[in-house]
């Protein structure tokens, strides 16, 4: 790094008219404010009301909706389902994504075809994926039970199997995302590193834990951030496949919010759930941003 370079850049930018930077980002900030901040605040305000527009009920309720949520077993069940779903599917996607990326790296010729097939799964609209899995999980004629040796597992109707079934469907759908990220990073690792490791007599495990994994770390952090936020908000898979059933064992917070908002038309209650999901997502995002900053990946 030449001594004059970066410092000179900083000097120049400080000589700009004050507020010029703000002026430049103002349109973006305005758009963000209109599209994000305003609805967020509005939902927060709604969550403090008892509002059932269809029936003309509209009054301030304070924390009543939150108190109802706190004492509602169905809400806690939805929170639990959301967390289990998020942790399990993100963990499986990370492990699976890395493994598939490693397998693809070894065979550059086949990798392109393999990647295209994988991306197909990721490119499918969720509703199509959901319908596909409805067929795969069909207890009488589905492929999954056939592959398991003709068992008669009631995937979507058994409270013990429905959530694992959804997690598997989600892993199938989003594993390619992690794979592609990792594969791209793997290609960028200089071959010399591996040659050196080989000369030093490092085995496959040591090579993986000492070289590959540390170099994948940053990209994995980014993958985790994206996937966790997605999983916390996931809605379409469960909505189409199980409708939250059986017995609410696959009802996530967003499905709960949807049911409150559009079916029970409890705008206040549904908004309160929205606020909870929002807080959860912000919390996770904040945690990851801290981690990324630690890695030097974010300002």
């Amino acid at each position, binding site marked *: 790094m030449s001594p004059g370079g970066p410092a000179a850049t900083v000097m120049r930018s400080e000589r700009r008219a004050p507020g010029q930077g703000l002026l430049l980002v103002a349109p973006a900030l305005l758009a963000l404010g209109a599209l994000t901040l305003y609805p967020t605040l509005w939902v927060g305000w709604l969550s403090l009301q*008892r509002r*059932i*527009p*269809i*029936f003309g*009920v509209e009054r301030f309720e304070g924390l009543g909706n939150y108190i*109802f949520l706190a004492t*509602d*077993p*169905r809400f806690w069940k939805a929170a639990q389902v959301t967390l289990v779903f998020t942790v399990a599917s993100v963990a499986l996607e990370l492990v699976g994504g890395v493994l598939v990326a490693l397998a693809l790296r070894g065979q550059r010729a086949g990798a392109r075809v393999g990647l295209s097939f994988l991306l197909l799964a990721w490119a499918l609209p969720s509703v199509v994926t959901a319908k596909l899995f409805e067929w795969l999980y*069909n*207890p*009488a004629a589905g492929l999954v039970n056939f592959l398991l040796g003709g068992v*008669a597992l*009631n*995937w*979507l*109707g*058994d*409270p013990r199997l*429905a959530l694992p079934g959804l997690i598997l469907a989600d892993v199938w759908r989003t594993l390619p995302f992690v794979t592609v990220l990792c594969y791209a990073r793997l290609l960028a690792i200089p071959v010399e590193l591996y040659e050196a490791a080989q000369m030093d007599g490092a085995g496959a495990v040591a090579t993986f834990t000492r070289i590959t994994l540390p170099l994948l770390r940053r990209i994995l952090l980014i993958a985790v951030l994206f996937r966790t936020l997605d999983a916390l908000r996931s809605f379409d898979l469960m909505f189409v496949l*199980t*409708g*939250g*059933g*059986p*017995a*609410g*064992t696959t*009802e996530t917070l967003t499905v709960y919010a949807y*049911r409150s908002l*559009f*079916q*029970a*038309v*409890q705008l206040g209650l549904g908004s309160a759930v929205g606020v909870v999901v929002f807080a959860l997502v912000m919390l996770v995002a904040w945690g990851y941003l801290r981690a990324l900053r630690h890695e030097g990946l974010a300002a």
Partner: protein
Amino acid sequence: MLAEFEAAHPGIRVKAEVLPWTSDEQRQFLVINLEGGQPGFDVMMLDCIWVPEFARAGWILDLTPGITPDELAAHFPSAVEAGTYRGRTWALPWIMNVGLLYYRSDLLGRYGFRPPATYVEMLEQIRVIRAGEKNRKLEGYLWQGKQYEGLVVNVLEGLWADGTTLVGEDGRIFPDPERAEQVLRFMRMLIDTGASPGWVTAGDEEVTRRAFGNGEAVFLRSWPYAVDMFEKPGSPVRGKVGLAPLPSHEAGRRAPGSTGGAHLAITRQTLHPAEALELARFLTSPRAQRAMTASGATKPTRMALYHEPELVRASPNLPRIHDLTLAGRTRPVTPYYVMMSTTLQPELSAALVKVKTPARSVADARRRLDFFLRDLQE
């Protein structure tokens, strides 16, 4: 059909808007647009269970002044009832549906059985037929146990078959909680004893229709739409399917099937109320309903069409479906129906898959609904 309407009514142009396939999404679309106050459409199709809710919300026009009672008399009374709220007409009946029992007439005939009048008879027939057929893949009774509106309908029919109901005179659900628990216990027992396969807890109309259509079950509870599919050339059950009323829990007691269907309503904000009513009238006319019936898929709300020779030739079960529909009963006609149903769905499902006892499910559903309805009793 719209082209024909436009030709007959110069000066009126109709634009059709296709809504999402599922009922849930259609309702969401309508609720958002109507709540926004600028719906952008005049005539809309409503699932019959939404009519009182939309009427109470002030979203649809009171059609009473423009409709004579004679006009409505040609439709099934239960369809007219579903379009009526506070004694006024809010929507015109368009498409009809009723819950009924499909049975394998070949299998029942082989063992000398008639369609079962009670569940006890049905269970006995299932036992004998399955023992005699020695076909491990042959299931007994299929119904819809997935967590969705269909489950509420199945439970409702179970309650009626037991002589009780879902909404009491005072507007509370489960006026007779013990009866309701008993009905839920019975449905669990169907699964426990193998009379119904375990997977009915994930079964909706299509899943169960396909299994029965593949010849994999003796009995199926479903809607009339399936009958033409069973009779299609190449269907494994072609010519082997009969239609009967749902069984009851007690000999001599009627067990009505739930009626369903769609109505046409007009938005309150419409700029063209007269033209919109004209269109709704046209689409629900004998002529239009005849064309829809002839094309298969839907059944009409006009009773006379079920006996028209030409339609009956194409679909010989029509007169039978007429009788079953006439004996049917509407789901509770209340603005809170959707709210009730969505509250009930996970609770009923929990009882079926044994996450909760029936008593717990019934109590939890009541408590939750009380919170929702707190300010709403009329």
